């Protein structure tokens, strides 16, 4: 199947989704669900405002910090658990269990500790992201074929050369997959925190709009976040595929 045909099919699906949206909006009424056109009109007016910019910045800062924390901690834990066999065996089931828990239940505790501050959002977002990063980094290191390490010894590489020239490139694709998933869940964590209890941020704006019955604002912000997440993920996937082509 040619690439253009596939691209065309994808466009058809997008059009179908937009039509579905329009149909649903027509069925439930514009006050409950604004259609595509009114939404984009509202977006065009809303995005350039300071209110939007301030809240988007608040979310962005919280997200960036949470990501840094999640990536840093996650990579460290993952490398340790991947390299140190026993810690991996002990820790993996714990991490997997934590991964499947509804972490929103812990948010009140974080609020009690940090209050309604940026740190609270950052920590909450980070506890979401740490887990997939750690788990996938650990798997990546465990999956390094033994023969690479033997080859490194026969080529008489120094320990540093072995890490930098063999271990790192061998693990990058899988680690990147972990970083991509970590990106997604960290964003979700930050937004959830904002939706539940926060005084700023895009998540807060959505809930705020809901209480004021401003459906157009609600769905506009949702669309913006949707677009951001989709595009960011597509970029990360593209990077991953470029590396995977060689593996």
């Amino acid at each position, binding site marked *: 199947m040619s690439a253009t045909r596939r691209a065309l099919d994808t466009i058809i699906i997008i059009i179908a989704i937009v039509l579905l949206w329009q149909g649903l909006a027509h069925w439930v009424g514009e006050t409950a669900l604004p259609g595509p056109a009114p939404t984009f009109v509202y977006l065009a007016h809303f995005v350039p405002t300071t209110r939007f910019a301030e809240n988007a910045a608040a979310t962005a800062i919280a997200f960036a910090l949470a990501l840094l924390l999640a990536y840093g901690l996650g990579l460290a834990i993952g490398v340790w658990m991947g390299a140190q066999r026993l810690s991996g065996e002990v820790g993996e089931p714990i991490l997997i269990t934590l991964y499947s828990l509804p972490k929103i239940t812990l948010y009140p505790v974080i609020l009690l500790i940090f209050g309604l501050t940026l740190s609270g959002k950052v920590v909450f977002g980070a506890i979401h992201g740490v887990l997939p990063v750690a788990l996938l980094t650990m798997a990546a290191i465990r999956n390094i074929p033994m023969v690479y390490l033997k080859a490194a010894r026969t080529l008489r590489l120094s320990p540093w050369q072995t890490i930098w020239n063999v271990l790192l490139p061998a693990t990058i694709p899988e680690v990147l997959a972990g970083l991509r998933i970590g990106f*997604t869940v960290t964003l979700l964590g930050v937004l959830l925190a904002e939706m539940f209890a926060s005084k700023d941020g895009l998540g807060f704006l959505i809930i705020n709009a809901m209480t004021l019955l401003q459906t157009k604002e609600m769905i506009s912000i949702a669309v913006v976040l949707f677009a951001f997440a989709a595009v960011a993920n597509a970029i990360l996937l593209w990077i991953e595929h470029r590396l995977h082509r060689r593996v």
Partner: protein
Amino acid sequence: MTRAGWIRLLVIVAMIGAVELACRLNFIDHRVLIPPSKMATALVAMLASGQLNDDIVRTLGVITIATTLSVVFGFALGLVIHALPRLRAALDPFFATYYAVPVFIFYPVMIAIFGLSLIPIVLMGVATAIVAMIIATLNGLDRIPRVLTKVARVHRMGRLATALQLQLPAAAPHLFTGVKLSVSYAFIAVIAAEFILAPAGLGRAIANAYADFDNRRMYALMLFVLVIATVVNAGLHALDLRWAKRRGTRPS
């Protein structure tokens, strides 16, 4: 139990013990965190009094409904999509990015459409879980060895018999993974939805307890939710392991 298992048990007990001690010795303010033992006793008392029954039934009921819908329709959709390769190729980028989007941001939109009832919460659960089931179904159907259909023809089996006796068992491990994920995702989605806005349910109860500064009640409920989630997920995982062992494969 393996050596790693013992160490793990020790680590968990040690961590809980440390928290307990820190709370009792007032290193941690009791307005922030209460000792785990008090959480447990509060929970037992509340369960015994029956005051949690309505919320428990409601939350677990919604999760069950959402999971069932996700598994059934996810499987059905997976079957259909698998049979239409062109559709599958077109949908591929969407499946790849679906879980990149925090579906939660549409919860308030659903409340606006359906009102503050069970429906938006169930929808949230289904929206989160169904795609995992579809993907798992597609994977499972992919991995049915082609040779099985040839064996079926040698035995002159009809299409339904082939599907039920050969193809379904061959795809079963992946389908079960889909069920596992659906349960897990539905659980997370429903609790989160109840937290943000819902008329009732365990999530709502925790949020209310937090707003009322009722730490004892809040932590007891948190403990309950986390324990239930752990037990259910662990149970499904243990089942997965047992079946995988019998077939000589490793579960995902």
